[in-house]
């Protein structure tokens, strides 16, 4: 890859001037002068880059991740890792439908490496998955039922030689209900679960399968495997410069021929700093950036960049302390929700958010008709008065940055000032992202001095969207119910959900759960991110799905 001129850096930039530059003739002249100086001085390097023109072009993505995601299966770096590396190199048995037709509504699951699945008729703790025929790993081996069984022990059985602690760490959360996997025939496997779990297909959609062939070839040396990963995904691994860039190539033999990548090469560059990403896009170094800062949008537009947004299952919220303190009283929780002026927050973010009125964005199928807490500081104050908590002192644990936290500090400060105006006395306790994650995991028992934590959550599937936040068995540190919320009626509803295998009936139960979570005001609902991304006008064919994951395969880049 050494001399493959991946970033069409020079090409891209030529002739494209920002609005500002066009406005100022002098500046343009000066810029041209400088440019021709460099062009003269170093013509060789530039013309070399100029010859790179290829049919589908090279897509260079500036990611928000602090580093390249690991390539040994389930990636790190949050869902961004899944978006760009995980679902590109690998497939899961169940995939997310990110196609154009789905763009108008929230995404749902579709067949992946499994073509069909159903719960065993005589045993509701056993799921049967029919596997896709004729799928090949990037290394040429064929995909079989044995591979699925092997992958399970790779992810879960710490006695097996193929066990990998890092994969366990990433995948265990999704395999928590699985008791074992067995092969029925060459194209069928059975998943036994510890409890009745109607949502298992959703959980398995996050479990990525790697090639046992390659793993054996490198003798289970995961460091080496990371440099030569092999999956079944639409892209295959080409090369990586640690910490700097990863290059993927189209897998022309992908089992879903409709999803063979249209571009010739996909380059991923980690750029954790938002202003760095903006500068990189404006200077033509990359042609796609994730999450530009809202304040840079106007500048990007003036340079002709496309800004793409769409609702997606993301919830910027505060999980509350139900063990002690004022939020144990429903009226205080409701007061906090009444206190927020979400329109103001949207203005602050340059329109780049959806007002958060519930755990879910309204396009979710089980959104229903939840009670909406419109901005009403008077009512908030009145409720606080009733509870005799005025001013109501609360401490919120927040992070200074972090995956999915949007503009964490300004947003938290705005929440504070709005809540203070409605009768609260908010103390923000900022910490770095990892520290906040530790607080989140350890749960309210160890951190009873916090009344709420601000960790944004993905809400892509029913369990992650709703259940884990309110279900009693999910009390931290066991699960994601940080504040130890417990409500017998909701618990009953949830076990009904797990036992309901009829999709429509289950949808009804889920809707009920969402509505009652709003009635109880189990969180302070603030915002849903719109997942903004900016791309050069030369990037074509992308349709943003309502998902954390995106399909990059239809994208082509004009030379």
């Amino acid at each position, binding site marked *: 890859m050494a001399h493959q001129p991946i970033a069409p850096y020079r090409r891209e930039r030529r002739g494209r001037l920002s609005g500002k530059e066009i406005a100022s003739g002098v500046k343009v002249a000066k810029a041209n002068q400088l440019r021709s100086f460099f062009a003269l001085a170093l013509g060789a390097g530039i013309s070399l880059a100029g010859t790179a023109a290829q049919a589908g072009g090279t897509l260079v993505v500036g990611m928000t991740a602090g580093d390249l995601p690991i390539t040994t299966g389930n990636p790190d770096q949050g869902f961004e890792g899944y978006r760009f590396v995980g679902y590109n190199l690998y497939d899961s048995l169940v995939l997310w439908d990110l196609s154009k037709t789905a763009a108008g509504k929230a995404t749902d699951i579709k067949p992946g490496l499994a073509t069909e699945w159903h719960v065993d008729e005589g045993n509701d703790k056993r799921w049967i998955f029919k596997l896709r025929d004729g799928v090949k790993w990037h290394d040429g081996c064929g995909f079989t039922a044995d591979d699925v069984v092997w992958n399970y022990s790779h992810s879960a059985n710490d006695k097996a030689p193929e066990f990998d602690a890092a994969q366990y760490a990433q995948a265990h959360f999704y395999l928590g209900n699985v008791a074992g996997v067995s092969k029925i025939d060459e194209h069928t496997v059975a998943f036994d679960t510890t409890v009745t779990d109607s949502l298992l297909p959703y959980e398995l959609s996050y479990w990525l399968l790697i090639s046992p062939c390659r793993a054996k070839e490198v003798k289970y040396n995961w460091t080496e495997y990371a440099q030569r990963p092999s999956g079944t995904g639409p892209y295959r691994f080409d090369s990586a410069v640690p910490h700097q860039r990863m290059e993927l190539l189209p897998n022309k033999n992908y089992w879903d021929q409709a999803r063979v990548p249209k571009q010739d090469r996909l380059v991923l560059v980690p750029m954790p700093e938002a*202003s760095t990403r903006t500068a990189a896009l404006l200077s033509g170094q990359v042609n796609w950036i994730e999450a530009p800062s809202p304040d*840079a949008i106007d*500048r990007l537009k003036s340079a002709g960049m496309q800004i793409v947004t769409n609702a997606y299952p993301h919830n910027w919220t505060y999980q509350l302390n139900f063990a002690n303190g004022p939020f144990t009283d429903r009226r205080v929780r409701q007061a906090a929700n009444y206190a927020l002026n979400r329109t103001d927050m949207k203005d*602050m973010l340059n329109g780049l958010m959806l007002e958060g009125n519930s755990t879910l964005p309204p396009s979710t199928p089980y959104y229903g008709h939840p009670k909406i807490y419109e901005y009403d500081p008077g009512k908030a104050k009145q409720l606080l008065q009733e509870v005799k908590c005025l001013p109501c002192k609360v401490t919120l644990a927040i992070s200074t940055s972090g995956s999915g936290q949007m503009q964490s500090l*300004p947003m938290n*400060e705005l929440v504070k000032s709005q809540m203070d105006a409605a009768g609260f006395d908010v103390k923000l306790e*900022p*910490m770095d992202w990892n520290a906040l994650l530790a607080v989140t995991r350890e749960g309210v028992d160890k951190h009873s001095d916090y009344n709420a934590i601000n960790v944004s959550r993905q809400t892509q599937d029913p369990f992650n969207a709703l259940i884990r936040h309110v279900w009693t068995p999910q009390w931290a540190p066991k699960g994601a119910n940080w504040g130890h919320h417990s409500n017998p009626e909701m618990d009953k509803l949830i076990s009904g959900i797990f036992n309901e295998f009829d999709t429509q009936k289950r949808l009804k139960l889920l809707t009920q759960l969402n509505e009652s979570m709003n009635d109880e005001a189990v969180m302070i609902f603030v915002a849903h991110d719109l997942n903004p991304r900016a791309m050069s006008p030369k990037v074509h064919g992308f349709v943003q799905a309502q998902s954390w994951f995106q399909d990059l395969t239809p994208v082509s880049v004009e030379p």
Partner: protein
Amino acid sequence: MTDYSSVIPAKAGIRGDEVPAAALDPRFRGNGGVIKTRSEPFLEEQAAPATKVRGYWESVFHRLRRDPVTLVFAVIVLLIVLAAICAPLIAPFDPYKESIVGRLKPLGWRGHPLGTDELGRDMLSRLIYGGRVSLLMGIVPVLIASLIGGMLGIAGGFIGGRTNTAVMRTMDVFYAFPSVLLAVAIAGAMGGGMANGMLALSLVFIPPMCRVAETATTQIRALDFIEAARASGARTTTIIRYHVLGNVLGPVFIYASSLVSVSILLASGLSFLGLGVRPPVPDWGLMLSTLRQSIYVVPFVCALPGLAIFITSICCNLVSDGLRAAMDVRM
């Protein structure tokens, strides 16, 4: 940030009991500035302290009076300090008062002479309040380091022998880290925050400060008049108080003054990395970092915190240079 550290006479592996010429020489930073150097005649007046006509401090003030550049910058530093102290009296707005409609406004917008920040808070007020934090971060670590490092150095230098070796060897270990690295590592390990930032910077400054004090003390101790004092029956405390302190304080003070600007820059760098002061406390480094996202909206407003750091740091540097010349300290 690379190497503000280089003003610290760091040299791993140098014994303190000889004068490490290149290491402790003020020329390390140059006698710099626009100030007078040894080439100028005034130096002759006090080349031999024993025979000076004027008192030492008198002559220092005399020389400072004839150095308008230092005086001017000293006045500016004084004004910055005063502004920080009197922040509640002079700041036109509450530095925490937000206004979403009034966010990111340019210089001179509706009574906000320096515009507003990303939450619509008044920039002038935040810069004034920010001076409090930044100056505190500049001065407190230096004070702590002077106190602890100075005491360790004097003790080591005066007692000598094994004690001195033990003290200086321990210091040498900390010398083995480039100062920025050490500050970032400590602040990073302890998890940021203002107190931790100060602690980190203090730890960074203690070893060089200790070395300065130790060198000066060792030199003094070897001089005849200490022996004479001893012979005349003076007690150790008396000797330290009258003879050692009198001669060691000068170098320590000058060195400390030169560290203030370094400390301000380092502290702002820590805040910039997210390892220093926590938001929403106004701090110049932190403001610089958060406003970085908005640089395309109000470029000049976003440049202000950097300018504030720069002005304060350059003034401190020049004043320190002036003081060094006036006091003619050769460390």
